[in-house]
């Protein structure tokens, strides 16, 4: 049985509300999804929260998965969760009448726990805008093709390629 057949069987199990199959999905994707959230937020606690929310959504929405790339479907939910979080944060900040730029910096400003170390990459990632950072992380952690990423983002593949190239080139320069 191939890897994709195994995944298909697990997904069928999930649709039948088999908790073991959901556990398998968690084991398979938790690491990548956590990396995606962590690189976007730079915060462990927040990444914990978003990862939990992702898998809760997975349980709720598994019935709506109609085939195709499971990674694409899962990371689309992850992306929506991240942007929902951003919007909620912005709404809260608007109520407090704070500038939008300040919000962005607060979101990416990691609130470290005592034993948390921020790597150089995370520091440089903060210098990229949210959209570019999300695109780079989506590409890296979802392992999706550019075509699939373009579909998720509802934009032409040329736009996705250009944005990603620009973002990665800038990141490379920042990391020198």
């Amino acid at each position, binding site marked *: 049985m191939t890897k994709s057949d195994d995944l298909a069987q697990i997904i069928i199990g999930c649709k039948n*509300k088999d*908790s073991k199959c*959901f*556990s398998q999905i*968690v*084991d398979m994707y*938790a*690491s*990548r999804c*956590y*990396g995606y959230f*962590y*690189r976007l937020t730079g915060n*462990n606690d927040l*990444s*914990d929260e978003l*990862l*939990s929310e992702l*898998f*809760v959504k997975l*349980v709720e929405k598994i019935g709506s998965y109609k085939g195709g790339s499971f990674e694409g479907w899962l990371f689309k939910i992850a992306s929506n969760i991240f942007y929902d979080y951003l919007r909620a944060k912005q709404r809260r900040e608007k109520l407090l009448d704070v500038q939008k730029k300040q919000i962005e910096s607060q979101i990416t400003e990691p609130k470290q726990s005592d034993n948390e170390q921020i*790597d*150089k*990459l*995370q520091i440089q990632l903060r210098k990229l805008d949210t959209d570019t950072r999300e695109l*780079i992380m989506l*590409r*890296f*952690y979802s*392992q*999706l*093709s*550019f075509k699939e990423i373009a579909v998720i983002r509802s934009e032409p*593949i*040329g736009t996705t*390629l*250009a944005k*990603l*190239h620009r973002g*990665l*080139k800038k*990141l*490379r320069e920042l*990391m020198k």
Partner: protein
Amino acid sequence: MNDGNQENLKELFEKFLDAEQAESCAEDVQKAEQILREHPAPEPDDMLIANIKAEIAMRLPAGRTYVFKQIAYKVVGIAAAVIILTAIGLRLFEKGNGEPGPVVYASIISTAIWESDDIAAVDANLAIFTVEIEQIENELLALRLGEDDGNGDRSVTELEMELIQINSDFWKG
């Protein structure tokens, strides 16, 4: 990370750029992604994974109960419909095999005649009425044919009155 994606980046960029630019862009992407690989993100805590699995397990029975409830409602609905239809069917069946209801001839023939238990008396009355009607009809015919007994219009009127009287008696039973 990102090993699963075996896209030919150069070929992809060549769709939008010339060969030299495409090669340069593909190289930029590969080198930048190498940096990401060299700086792995932290792994999720084991406790977090356990909590997520526990939360999923907690949510699943609720889902099952919901599905069970939906099925139960459907079954109860169908059962109720079957019971109602069966009851209606049995009632109709019982009516079909039971005593015949009263025949609705009242508008044509006097109810008293149909409801009478004395068949002989009713038959005698019917015979008398029939004879009287035939007699009056013959008299009317004779008058119309000119076989008048001298009373003229009066005779006809009397006969008609008599006919009405008989008719009235007949319907009264």
